[in-house]
């Protein structure tokens, strides 16, 4: 008991002089702390979180521009793959679709050619 008290005593009046302000804190300040700081020990699941700078830029960009831009009828970020994961998905989907169409097209033409080749052989 005494040995634990020496190193890990419970705190009488630990309460900070001012209460911590969790809700009012600036998001960029929180992000830089919870992404970059604190004790890092290896977890079982390795998550590769985005770079703090990138996140901050994204968030700030959104916060500062979404409202004003919407008012001006601008919504480019919703289709910009670098800024919107949905747009990134859409871009992949579009590309996939285009490739499938192209493949289909190529297959049809090569089928045609083969058919024509066969026809000329049998003739």
């Amino acid at each position, binding site marked *: 008991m005494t040995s634990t008290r020496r190193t890990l005593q*419970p*705190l009488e009046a630990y309460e900070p002089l001012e*209460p911590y302000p969790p809700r009012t804190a600036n998001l960029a300040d*929180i992000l830089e702390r919870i992404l970059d700081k604190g*004790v890092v020990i290896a977890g079982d699941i390795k998550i590769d*979180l985005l770079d703090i700078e990138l996140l901050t*830029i994204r968030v700030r960009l959104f916060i500062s521009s979404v409202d004003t831009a919407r008012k001006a009828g601008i919504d480019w970020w919703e289709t910009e793959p670098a800024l919107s994961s949905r747009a990134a998905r859409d871009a992949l989907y579009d590309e996939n679709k285009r490739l499938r169409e192209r493949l289909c097209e190529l297959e049809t033409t090569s089928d045609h050619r083969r058919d024509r080749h066969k026809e000329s052989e049998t003739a």
Partner: protein
Amino acid sequence: MTEPTAHRPDDQSGSTVCVFAVCPASAAPVLSGVAGHTGGGPVRLLTAGPLAVVAQNVPAADFAPETLPERLGDPAELERCARDHHAVITAVARTAPVVPFPLATLYLSDERAVAAVAERARGFVRVLDRLRHRTEWGVKVTAAPGAPAPAAPELAAAPADGRAYLARVRGRQQEREERQEVAWRTAERVYAAVRRTAVAARRLRPQDPVLGGGGPRQLLNAALLLDHHRAAELRELAGTLAADPAIARHARIEVTGPWVPYSFARLDQCDEEERADAVL
């Protein structure tokens, strides 16, 4: 013998254990009313020897390596996740010294989380001792918005010739550089003064100015570890410095906090930073 099943997660495969922080088991905080991450179970304590691990079961699907980064790509989701994480740590810190973990420290089971912490129990005890009765404060210095335009009486007149024009351009460039130099020096002066109130200080990377809005450039983004009783002193000092005309002309000072000592919770070289920083 009855198994204590009350707090067992009902479905081990569908959930992952998210760890928020470590605090002394003897100062176990009250966690009722702390929500943790959306969709997760209650925030609870696991015991790892002399330490308590603040943890929560969260849906494995939402916290998988494939899904979480994508989820955090959505600013609203990122903000929610960040604030939820921060709120748990802040709640613990109200009644106990705490070592915070970064967002998304995840384990497959309670046993794995406890083992990971227990393995480093001595290090945690050392860090907790060091952070006891101390809080982190942020001091940010930004360039003053309306930087003073030095007296340039001839500026209104049109340049007499090409040479005069070039001289003026050079003059402006020089003036800008000088202004910048003074702003940096002002920030250094502020840092030197405020760190005297702290037991440790770290300079964080300056945050970018608000994009698009052309916000003020950040000259200093410092984190200070303060004994509780010196917080008022820091605030007062920051106020005095901000009111000093020699500083006010070039820079704005902002104090944030108190923060849980995120920037000073490190298992390695926890005494090194002051010395390392002093070299700067």
